[in-house]
């Protein structure tokens, strides 16, 4: 029951929030209370994962019809991602606290939270797909209604691109289900038992369908073009969720659906997945270097960082899988924080170009401090969280394919080349003639508190990643080749 509550509670909360103005209630307070209660629920349910007392938490499945069963389960990885989701939703809601927004805005985030919870918990591919698609509609409205100038275009592009991917995902799911029926005579949608054929065209097409289906969300490079637009036009809170949570579901799909369905494809799939990941790392980093808009820059850096996650899990080694999964959490924290701070800048000045600022350190030293720490975490400085994930992913990959790992290492280096100059230009450098830096005032208490909430885990994971690795390690252990 508790797992049903995980996804149902935010959705019911979203309905309450939506209709709260009719009862003269403050929508933002309702949404905040719901998000906080959800976070508490997730924390409370998962305490057993700390220290490894609990391997997984599941609800007995109930077969409905056609083998579709209502079954949910949570292991360490799911729990961490649910926790990230609940935590970042709370941060996102609070980040827009001072803006005058209608009830729909607050409700959308809760609805989105519930749908993402469903994706992380569902064991049945039918429900997985329903939740997967249910994420689309609230995000479409968040971008399209509350975004910046070019929002409608970005929202439509986002919807069409992701729907395109979803169709392939659906084809892949149907392929697995039908193949299972052909071999066993039974209908099942359980992602834990569905397997693709060992070889042949059918298997290759199924594999490709899943790579496209999940790849649109990650996003993998040729099908990534929706992401910079969506990130740039979304409101700050939307970008936090989009980068922090929604990009994770693609990699999660790789871990939970694609790799288990092809248990013996490790070496066969490696050049493809690893190659795509390496392209992501390099392409994302190079594109980020060329950006003059802070949000676009961070968006492209997300593409590069998600490349590291895929790189790690494609290696199918213990370090790689654990590092790639950990990197999901890390990216959620750092990129969430970066988008949050760009959002603060945008709230103050309605600008976000690199050329619009300069010498912010004299105006806003606290913001500079937080931004600096986050940038270093994002680059992967030892002692901060990014280092652990990237190092483990790369060392895992180095065990199986040195060339791909070397390409990845170059990606780490390039990260310094786009993030540090951006940091320098905005916070440290000369004040440009057209700069609006003088309009920037430093962080207030709420903003500082939000950033501390994000930065403390970054440092903690960087210094002592053990507990988290102990949680994700067993969850991805069966994928090790």
């Amino acid at each position, binding site marked *: 029951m508790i797992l049903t509550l995980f996804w149902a509670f935010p959705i019911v909360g979203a309905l309450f929030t939506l209709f709260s103005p009719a009862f003269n209630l403050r929508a933002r307070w309702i949404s905040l209370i719901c998000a906080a209660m959800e976070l508490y629920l997730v924390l409370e349910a998962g305490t057993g994962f700390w220290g490894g007392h609990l391997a997984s938490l599941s609800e007995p499945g109930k077969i409905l019809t056609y083998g579709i069963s209502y079954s949910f389960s949570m292991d360490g990885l799911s729990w961490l991602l649910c926790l990230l989701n609940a935590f970042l939703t709370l941060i996102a809601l609070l980040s827009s606290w001072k803006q005058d927004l209608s009830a729909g805005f607050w409700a959308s985030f809760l609805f989105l939270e519930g749908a993402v919870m469903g994706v992380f918990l569902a064991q049945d591919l039918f429900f997985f797909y329903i939740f997967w698609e249910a994420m689309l509609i609230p995000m479409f409205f968040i971008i399209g209604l509350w975004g910046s100038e070019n929002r409608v275009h970005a929202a439509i592009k986002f919807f069409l691109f992701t729907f395109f991917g979803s169709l392939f995902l*659906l*084809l892949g799911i149907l392929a697995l289900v039908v193949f299972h029926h052909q071999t066993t005579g039974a209908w099942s949608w359980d992602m834990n038992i569905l397997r693709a054929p060992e070889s042949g065209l059918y298997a290759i097409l199924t594999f490709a369908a899943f790579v496209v289906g999940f790849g649109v969300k990650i996003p993998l490079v040729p099908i990534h073009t929706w992401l910079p637009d969506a990130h740039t036009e979304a409101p700050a809170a939307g970008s936090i969720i989009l980068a922090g949570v929604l990009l994770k579901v693609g990699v999660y799909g790789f871990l939970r659906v694609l790799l288990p369905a092809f248990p013996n494809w490790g070496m066969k799939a490696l050049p493809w997945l690893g190659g795509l990941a390496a392209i992501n790392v390099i392409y994302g980093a190079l594109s980020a270097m060329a950006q003059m808009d802070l949000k676009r820059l961070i968006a492209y850096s997300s593409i590069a960082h998600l490349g590291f996650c895929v790189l790690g899990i494609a290696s199918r080694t213990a370090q790689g899988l654990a590092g790639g999964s950990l990197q999901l959490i890390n990216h959620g924290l750092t990129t969430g924080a970066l988008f949050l701070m760009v959002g603060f800048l945008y709230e103050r000045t309605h600008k976000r170009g690199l050329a619009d600022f300069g010498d912010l350190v004299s105006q806003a030293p606290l913001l500079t401090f937080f931004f600096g720490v986050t940038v270093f975490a994002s680059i992967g400085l030892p002692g901060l969280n990014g280092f652990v994930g990237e190092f483990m992913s790369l060392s895992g990959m180095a065990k199986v394919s040195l060339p791909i790992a070397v390409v990845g290492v170059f990606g780490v280096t390039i990260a310094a080349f786009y993030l540090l100059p951006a940091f320098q230009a905005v916070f440290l450098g000369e004040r440009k003639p057209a700069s609006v830096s003088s309009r920037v005032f430093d962080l207030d208490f709420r903003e500082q508190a939000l950033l501390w909430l994000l930065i403390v885990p970054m440092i903690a994971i960087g210094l002592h990643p053990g507990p988290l690795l102990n949680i994700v390690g067993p969850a991805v252990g069966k994928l090790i080749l």
Partner: protein
Amino acid sequence: MNPAALFLRLAPMGSGISLFCGVLGVAFAGIFKKINSGLIRALGLLSLALAAAFVFAQPANGSISALLQADPMTKAWCGVFYAGALPFLIAGTWEDEVPALLLLGSLLGMTLLAFSANLLMLFISLELLSLPVYLLVALTPAKGRPKGLSFGCPSWEAAIKYFFAGSVSAAFFLLGLACHYSATGGFAFAGNGSFLDQTAFTLMAVAALFKIGAAPWHFWLPDVYEAAEPMLSGFLSTSVKAAGVFMLMRLGQYSQASFISLLPAIGALTMIVAALAALNQTRLQRLLAYSSLGHAGVLVLGVGAWLLLGASEKNALPIFFYLFSYVFMSNGAFFFLELTGVSEWRDLRGLGKTRPVLAFCFAALALSLAGIPPTAGFLAKFLVFWQVFKAGLYVPLIAASLATLAALVYYLRIIREMYLEEGVATSKIEAGTGMVRLIVTLSAAYSAVVGFLPWILSAFQRVLG
């Protein structure tokens, strides 16, 4: 024969007799000049309810007489026919007895179609259901359009077009029937597999595809659906289309003729044509007509897969559920046009702010028509696509998926105009009557909620045995 025995003899035909009595009742009310909307509605509802009761009390065990039979599909499809006509019947304004009479007459034809046990009966009931529909199109034009039977009225023109398309399809059917007779020496559904008989079934299937409006026999459809009153278009796109689908299924089910292998391609082609043609439309009713064409494509594709998988009644669930859900989605969307009187894109602008509830209903219907989870439309499309996958029709399935994606562009535009675009429509949104509003709301509720409840499928499965 005592009355009880007579009743038992007549009970299998009870549904037809009820509807026929409904027709007579409405006609007599007209003769005695007792016309008012309430009376006609009551008579129509009463006969429809009786007919439905008779259909569902009917055991689904095969032959009733030489001309009639009943199987699970008969019952299921009668349900779809009645459900599709119900909104029009209860929400229409019946100032005149003739349209109501035609509607009930057409339903009588549909009932006989579902019960028919041989090809001759199938043909007669096809004509019985079609002829009233042509006249209905002529007599109930969209609001603000000239009314009457004269050239120059769009509805009259559309009716003539519909009539000619229907006549051509009837000619195809008769030709096929003649070939079938000369090949087998009878009118039974079962074919003998000879080349002549294969040709016969192909010709008859073309007639059914005409009725459904599958490409390349779709040219009449947008004009007709646009010229008619939106409520009538709702009826045309649900009950009448379901009748065409039923015909196609019956023809394929017994004959296993070679035309079956063409159906998936025709279905995918219809979806592509509909999606591409709809992109350029500016008038919403025409847009919904093309949307309906796209759904016809899904249905033809689904029928093809169903026939390839052995055409068992149990497997008809995806098509049955699709049609049943489409009754809500299509009627809801057309009734929304009726309710608000919007006709073009710009009339929708800003509706999300000025009329939040109405806009939400239309958004839910549009998403359901597009097949986005978690709506009823998704569940329906998903089941059909699954069956298509099972039948191994990968290429048509991929084409259909891409057409779904292309169609999403215009469905999203509905949402975009209502919620995302700046500005508010200048034209006045009409309030509409309570009944129409109720139907829009209920349809939207069905579309939004059923996707969350896949277990209701077992209830549908039970109807099909």
